[in-house]
């Protein structure tokens, strides 16, 4: 049985698959790639932070570790500049997961605001390390082997790799939401101590969620590295990334499946478009600010929750209206 909800998912996926086949202008497919990377990362981030309420503002740690792992491995293994580089992307994700374990062991000991501050602090440790260690190339960054593809088709493999990451993140996030594990994360968000008193192994659950969410973010960073062909500490360990991912999820609807997808789709594509259209890298900040004011003031739980509330209110009103009419007739 095909439910209406599933039809929407299929339509959305079809649109995303068709986009680079119809729109071949590299300017726009590049926007598509960045947007998809952010959609995947935000979805994965939300799978832990949105469900558990532990707002991680150091997700760029995973992103950067993914990017550096791929770049360093490509160098050491002498991977040539072709499609082979793509096989290293999941390895970048795995490395991000491995790094997330000790980070989580430290950060997850504290809650709420303290957790947020600790994740920011850990993020800066990583950024400083990448800037100062010699194996990371310091501030001059690292280069990847050049991929000699023609410009007209260059973007396509990247676009579909980014789409694959996003689909993977969304499927995983949906599966977690339906699992007992996901329910435990939600219980931790609402009352962690009470959850522990009902048999939830809260620390193990938190650490598992934190680690799992690093995977797709690490892959996003790794893909970003291959796409640009060079990485610098300030671009892969980027505090703006930390904030963007969180804001996209909050904008769309924290803790929902579709919220981060929608938030990233709207905000990242708009940011990229505005930057190119007006060749001004900061203009988007003004529009973002205004948008966030609107969302925070009028739909504090995000667009997705606002819309579904609005729909259920409307149908409730209709049912109410129908009853009134019936009552008058009788």
């Amino acid at each position, binding site marked *: 049985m095909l439910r209406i909800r599933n039809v929407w998912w299929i339509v959305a996926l079809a649109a995303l698959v068709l986009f680079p086949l119809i729109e071949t202008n590299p300017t726009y497919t590049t926007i598509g790639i960045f947007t998809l990377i952010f959609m995947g990362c935000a979805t994965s981030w939300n799978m832990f932070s949105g469900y558990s309420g532990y707002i991680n503002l150091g997700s760029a740690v995973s992103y950067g570790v993914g990017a550096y792992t791929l770049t360093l491995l490509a160098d050491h293994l002498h991977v040539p500049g072709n499609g082979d580089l793509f096989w290293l992307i999941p390895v970048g994700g795995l490395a991000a997961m491995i790094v997330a374990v000790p980070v989580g062991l430290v950060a997850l000991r504290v809650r709420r605001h303290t957790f947020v501050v600790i994740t920011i602090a850990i993020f800066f440790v990583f950024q400083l390390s990448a800037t100062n260690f010699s194996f990371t190339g310091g501030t001059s960054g690292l280069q990847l082997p050049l991929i000699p593809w023609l410009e007209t088709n260059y973007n396509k493999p990247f676009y579909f790799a980014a789409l694959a990451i996003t689909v993977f993140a969304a499927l995983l996030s949906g599966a977690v939401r339906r699992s007992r594990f996901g329910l435990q994360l939600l219980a931790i968000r609402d009352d962690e*101590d*009470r*959850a*522990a008193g009902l*048999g939830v192994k809260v620390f*193990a659950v938190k650490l598992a969620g934190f680690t799992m969410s690093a995977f797709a973010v690490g892959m996003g960073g790794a893909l970003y590295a291959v796409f640009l062909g060079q990485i610098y500490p300030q671009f892969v360990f980027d505090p703006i990334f930390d904030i963007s991912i969180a804001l996209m999820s909050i904008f769309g609807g924290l803790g929902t499946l579709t919220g981060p997808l929608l938030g990233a789709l709207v905000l990242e594509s708009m940011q990229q478009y505005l930057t190119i259209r007006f060749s001004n890298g900061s203009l988007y900040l003004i529009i973002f600010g205004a948008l966030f004011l609107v969302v925070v003031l009028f739909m504090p739980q995000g667009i997705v929750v606002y819309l579904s509330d609005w729909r259920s209110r409307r149908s409730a009103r209709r049912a109410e209206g129908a009853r009134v009419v019936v009552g008058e007739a009788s």
Partner: protein
Amino acid sequence: MTILLSVDRVSKAFGGLQALTECSLFVEKGSIAGLIGPNGSGKTTLFNVITGYEKPDSGSVSFEGADITRLGPSNVFALGVGRTFQITRIFSRITVLENMLVATQRDEGWLRGLTRSKSSKSELVSAMEWLDFVGIDGLASQPAGSLSFGQRKLLELAYVLVADPDVILLDEPAGGVNLTLINEIANKIQTLNKGGKTFLIVEHNMEFVMNLCDRVTVMHQGTDLVSGTPSEIRNDPLVLDAYLGGSDDDDAEEAS
């Protein structure tokens, strides 16, 4: 008689405040035990120590003969010690039914949660049965945050019961609820007790405690003052002094 739960000379201090001093207590299997005492006498702290939320400075807690003093809350619960809180704590942003499901597998490893769905058929059935038992099954699909105070109390009782613990610690089950509901809760406790569940109840409502409990322990200033049957407690001069009577001594304390 078999002792199911016992607390042996437990002490606990928070900084300079001595919350518990050599407090001892036991609960017989299949009984309803009561714990009373003035505000601040350490009842809730004792609950926290038993259920693993606080670690005592000295003394021990054992359940079915095994030492559980150092176990965390999830492990204590997994062994079969359930509790409710004085200030009712539910998961407000998930549905009532989902609240129930959080507790259904009390001793399931955390890894198992990753590979299984939110609920099995049998869990759903038993969750609905317990919601029906406390009388809020009609609210199963509502977000728990929309429940009234009394309904929250019932939900908290139901989701502890769904995990089938051997002993249930109730922290003021009759606090802040109307008389009808108090009687209803008392009836539920009696029904469950007949089914073999053991209870330890903290409560200020004297009538509730005296009618329900087989044995009552009175706490005063962090230690167990006296234990006995409700009629023994009622007539004990020490208890009258510390709690029920309000003698000159009590007035002096309030003044200080």
